[in-house]
């Protein structure tokens, strides 16, 4: 167990540095903000829907490498998914970090497994979850709003 093996590996640092999904979506259908006040992490998520499909998803914000890498991975893995698929992926991701679930992500999003090493650093789990909890609440709220309408 060492930081270089568990967390600070290339795949995470690349996702941390990637600017690809780091932008505001001016015509977003869903938009939400999440923060970890204790460490100052602060993430905004933007989602554009096409019917039931996530057409575009981006993030903005300030955060550590784990927080930003996990947000970038989130965008990469949810883009083009149906809402139901997205919810399934979110569930799996959270299970990987919070329960003892062995991750079984589909091939094309298996990069998500890189985050598993964070488990060895309990303090940082909340960084790896910030964007994911934010998107989960955002989708739930919008589903709830739909129900009410």
């Amino acid at each position, binding site marked *: 167990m*060492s*930081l270089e093996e568990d967390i600070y590996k290339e795949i995470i640092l690349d996702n941390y*540095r990637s600017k690809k999904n780091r932008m505001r979506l001016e015509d977003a259908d869903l938009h939400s903000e999440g923060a970890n006040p204790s460490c*100052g*992490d602060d993430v905004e998520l933007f989602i554009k829907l096409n019917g039931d499909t996530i057409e575009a998803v981006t993030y903005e914000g*300030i955060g550590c*490498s784990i927080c930003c890498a996990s947000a970038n991975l989130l965008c990469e893995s949810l883009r083009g998914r149906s809402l139901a698929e997205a919810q399934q992926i979110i569930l799996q991701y959270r299970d990987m970090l919070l329960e003892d679930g062995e991750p079984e992500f589909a091939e094309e999003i298996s990069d998500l497994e890189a985050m598993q090493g964070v488990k060895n650093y309990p303090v940082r789990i909340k960084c790896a979850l910030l964007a994911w909890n934010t998107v989960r609440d955002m989708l739930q709220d919008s589903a709830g709003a739909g129900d009410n309408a």
Partner: protein
Amino acid sequence: MSTTQSSAAVGAQSAALDVSRIREDFPILKRTMNGKPFVYLDNGATSLKPQAVIDAEVGYYTELGANIHRGVYEFSEKASALYDQARNKVAGFIGARDPRQVVFTKSATESVNLIVYGWALKNIKPGDEICVSEIEHHANFVPWQMLAERCGATLRFIPMLPAEGTLDLSQLDQLINERTRVVAVTAMSNVTGYIPPVELILRRARAVGAITVVDGAQWVSHTAVDVESLDADFLVFSAHKMCGPTGVGVLYGRERLLEEMDPFLFGGDMVQRVRKEKTVFKQIPDKFEAGTPNIAGVIGFGSAIDYLLGVGMDAIHAHEQQLLAYALQEASSIDAIITYGPSDLLLRGGILSFNVGDAHPHDTGTILDEDGIAVRTGLHCAHPFMHALGIPGTTRASFYLYNNKQDVDRLIASVRRVAEIFA
């Protein structure tokens, strides 16, 4: 401010601390963290406690145990005497003329709020101005912001010069003017260790008749302080940052102002006579100390003061200056490091705030933690400061009397590791 004098004398003085002897006094320094010998560089957040302070608290619990100022029996009287002695010691430590000028609170934060609730809320009127600096800790900013909002007053900021995090005093005469009722300023930044020219700011404040509040939370712990020559109306600080227990703060105030002020917390022990129709309060400082205080904490604080005086505040200050100079020199060999704060070390206490490449401070903190080194990372309760610099925080190493060159070497080695990972 006496600081400038004593720090100017550093070079000549070479009042070398016997740091290895001092380290023996702090039991926690024998510990390991993540399998490495513990290096504590988070003194800006709170200091470690010497055995003498721990013993004083334990001694109260195992030998006296009683509440104060209410019992006629021996243990209660002894506890009361120790509590009162602690007040005398604190007064002596900061050069207050009269121990009644020392009010015990639970923290520097409560002390600032006490000024706001007890003095400012009834004295500040719409249109009045309150002047703070852009580098304040939230404890000396948010209460004033709330006050301004509630009273319709205007908040003015002494701006920070981004280059070195120092204050820009060029507009001081406009910022502090005849509408200014309060000037609240830190004596030492908890982010960079910068020591602003408080004397100058206070002089201007007095010239316009404003009340002056000095945040000494970082300063009193590291420097010999003389409130009489500082000539501030109020000075606040916390015991836990100066080898004392958690849960004890100090409000020092000018006698006349404390007397004018309304009590803040109401209840037992602060009253002279209570009738259903009307209550008569005690004199200062008692009227501000309602309820059972943190007896063990205050007694432990008394012992912390003894400890610091035994070592010598000038020697502590000089020692921290040396560590800082050494740390800055070593850090300069790391390409990716950016440090914050004045280049003139005479304007600084023993704090090194920095960032490494594109590593987020949180990442830096985690790597240092794995190497057994405790530092603070993030916004340091100084959001306006970070906002002005446009950075997501810093990593802060802050020194105290028990730190040594090895601690700095360990820090620098670990920062190198950060630089490599985030190369």
